[in-house]
């Protein structure tokens, strides 16, 4: 018999070994899966992990797809550390896209190549939009004590309806034959690619800077400390006079601001216009990203890169190996399960038990 026993301190060794063990498990599991579908495991794995990154364009796509996941995940991780459960980043992302896109549409007539102000203005509009959408659950929680899990999730379903109404109505492209989509933004309103021929924009370096900033806040600032205490020991936090309300507001608004910025970067980057759906679920995937990254900003960036690579690998597997998308889904799910399962050993150790533990009656 084995039993899991909590460690008094997280094991540093396990912290490094866990992802490696997870990777090994996945490679083994994946090999079996691919072999079952008649592919040489090594070739299949190289299609999955190497082929997408074989060109400059591929690397650009990898970073491009990781950007919204990383930015949303960073904001969420900060909140999750404080045990504020913002599930609605997808809605905040959409609101960011709406506000930034709305500004681009409103200014379309009078911006030209010289209008350098439009990009930062749109970014701010996006951030404000995301914060506004996150402020609603924060207010409901602090004023009425309602669960932010439910209200933020519900608002994630309201945001696309608002966007749908806008692109079906007032913001519909007048030259677009009644199709629900906006005009394409002027060039000045778009984020230029970092590298000729690739699509990744300035938003990716911004995500890296943001990760550094959040690392600093978490480690070296009083605000970061207070957030963490109110998450891990609410009673101690209250005793110390740290405001629970402030923690909720900071966590929600940071999450909203990040998601809103990501929404801006998506419409000003690869999309270039508003359409009825701007997010294929980035805000929800970002929850996975935050936890796979162990709620640490550096980990979140790595997790976003991993999930992005898995998505690209899934496409490559369909194209090169004729594997259906569902098999890629199984492989991705396997990797995530392995990662989270191996992480258990950071906080727990496996112990051999020689006798059956006495039955507890309580």
């Amino acid at each position: 018999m084995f039993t899991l026993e909590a460690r008094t301190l997280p094991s540093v060794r396990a912290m490094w070994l866990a992802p490696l063990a997870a990777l090994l498990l996945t490679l083994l599991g994946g090999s079996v899966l691919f072999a079952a579908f008649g592919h040489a495991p090594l070739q299949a794995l190289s299609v999955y992990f190497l082929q997408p990154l074989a060109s400059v364009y591929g690397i650009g796509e990898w970073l491009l797809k990781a950007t919204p996941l990383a930015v949303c995940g960073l904001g969420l991780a900060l909140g999750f550390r404080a045990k504020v459960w913002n599930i609605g980043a997808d809605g905040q992302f959409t609101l960011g896209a709406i506000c930034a896109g709305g500004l681009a549409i409103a200014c379309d007539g009078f911006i030209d190549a010289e209008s350098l102000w439009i990009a930062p203005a749109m970014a701010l509009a996006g951030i404000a939009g995301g914060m506004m959408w996150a402020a609603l659950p924060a207010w409901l929680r602090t004023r009425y004590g309602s669960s932010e899990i439910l209200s933020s999730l519900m608002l994630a379903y309201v945001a696309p309806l608002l966007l749908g109404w806008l692109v079906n109505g007032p913001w519909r492209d007048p030259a677009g034959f009644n199709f629900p989509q906006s005009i394409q933004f002027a060039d000045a309103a778009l984020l230029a690619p970092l590298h000729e021929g690739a699509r990744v924009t300035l938003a990716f370096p911004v995500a890296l800077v943001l990760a550094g900033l959040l690392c600093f806040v978490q480690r070296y600032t009083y605000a970061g400390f207070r957030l963490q205490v109110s998450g891990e020991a609410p009673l101690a936090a209250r005793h110390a006079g740290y405001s629970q309300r402030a923690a909720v507001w900071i966590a929600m608004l940071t999450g909203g601001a990040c998601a809103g910025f990501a929404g801006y970067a998506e419409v000003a980057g690869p999309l270039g216009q508003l359409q009825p759906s701007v997010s294929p679920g980035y805000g929800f995937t970002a929850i996975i990203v935050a936890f796979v990254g162990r709620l640490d900003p550096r980990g979140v960036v790595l997790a976003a890169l991993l999930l992005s690579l898995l998505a690209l690998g899934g496409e490559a597997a369909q194209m090169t190996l004729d594997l259906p998308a569902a098999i890629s889904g199984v492989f991705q799910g396997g990797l995530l399960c392995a990662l989270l399962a191996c992480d258990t050993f950071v906080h727990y150790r496996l112990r051999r038990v020689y006798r059956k533990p006495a039955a507890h009656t309580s």
Partner: protein
Amino acid sequence: MFSPRRRQLLQFAAATPLAAAFASVPRPARAAFPKPELPLKVGYVYVSPIGDAGWTYQHDLGRKAVEASFGDKVMIKVIESVSEGADAERVIREFASSGYGLVFATSFGYMNPLLRVAKQFPKGIFEHATGYRQAPNVGIYAARYYEARYLTGILAGRMSKSGVAGYVAAFPIPEVVMGINAFMLGMKSVNPQAQVKVIWVNAWFDPGKEREAAATLVAQGADVLTQHTDSTAVVQTAEDKGAYAIGYHSDMSKYGPKAHLSAATHHWEGYYRRVVQQVLDGSWAPDNVWGGIKDGMVGLAPLHPAVPAEVGALVATKKQDIIDGRLLPFQGPLFDQAGRQVIGAGAKLTDDELLKMNYYVEGVVGQMPK
């Protein structure tokens, strides 16, 4: 990965012929696309999983037909479940840059990404379903689904006892509205008192909502149900409730053995074979195709044995009339829901008018969401 709304904007047919308005497309010089090296690599981009029935399933039947007809002259790959955002451009570009000479993109939302890729790969040939923008190397195609809708309306009108049909619809875009109106006009042609009640579910694929809407329609007196959504839930609900059902996209008879009278079906086999043949011959040029029953792009699933022979004969006659051009579903005199005359006797709606349709015809109950 999570993707709760992957399936939005699935099939905006519509607006195809309007591309004439974008007449800046230069006519390509002859042999702009010389005969390709064999095998011709062909890529298909789908918006949803292939599944067992529905929009993408019908396109995949077309893909299989190409494979069967051309054997090793073609090499086909499929990427399914590609969302209509940033991912689409990467997938299409991936095909183009890996030597795929022909790419079919089968969802409206791929339009702008596809055009961007097409510009970067002028030697590649691209075909886009249900969009409205062409380019020297981009052709567009869609089908006149409303012709089959009209015929299923006749069927519903003759089979319904209450004279009320229920219609579960996704989004009020012209393609969907056109289908509702054609169905209504078909029903009315055999029962002047007929009504069609519509419930909008604001989703292309949401079996739960579709089922609920179908049950509501039955409770409101509808005894024939049909849908312009992408699941089989409405047919299954009709089966459970003892109502008749008319499928869409695919023959859905196995989901409603007792209920399924027929279905308005899509057929891309002939079109895909023709395009591939043209590309192989070096004779392809960008075209704008809006084909109907006559072209084999739209059809009816086999009628249920419960349909009387006389009704079957009527439907067959009307089908032939549509093929021969003697019958146009949207023929004058045509009245809108409020009884105002849209066009007079002898007139007909033009393609442009069809593709902008945003009103119900007389007999449809309820208000269209704006």
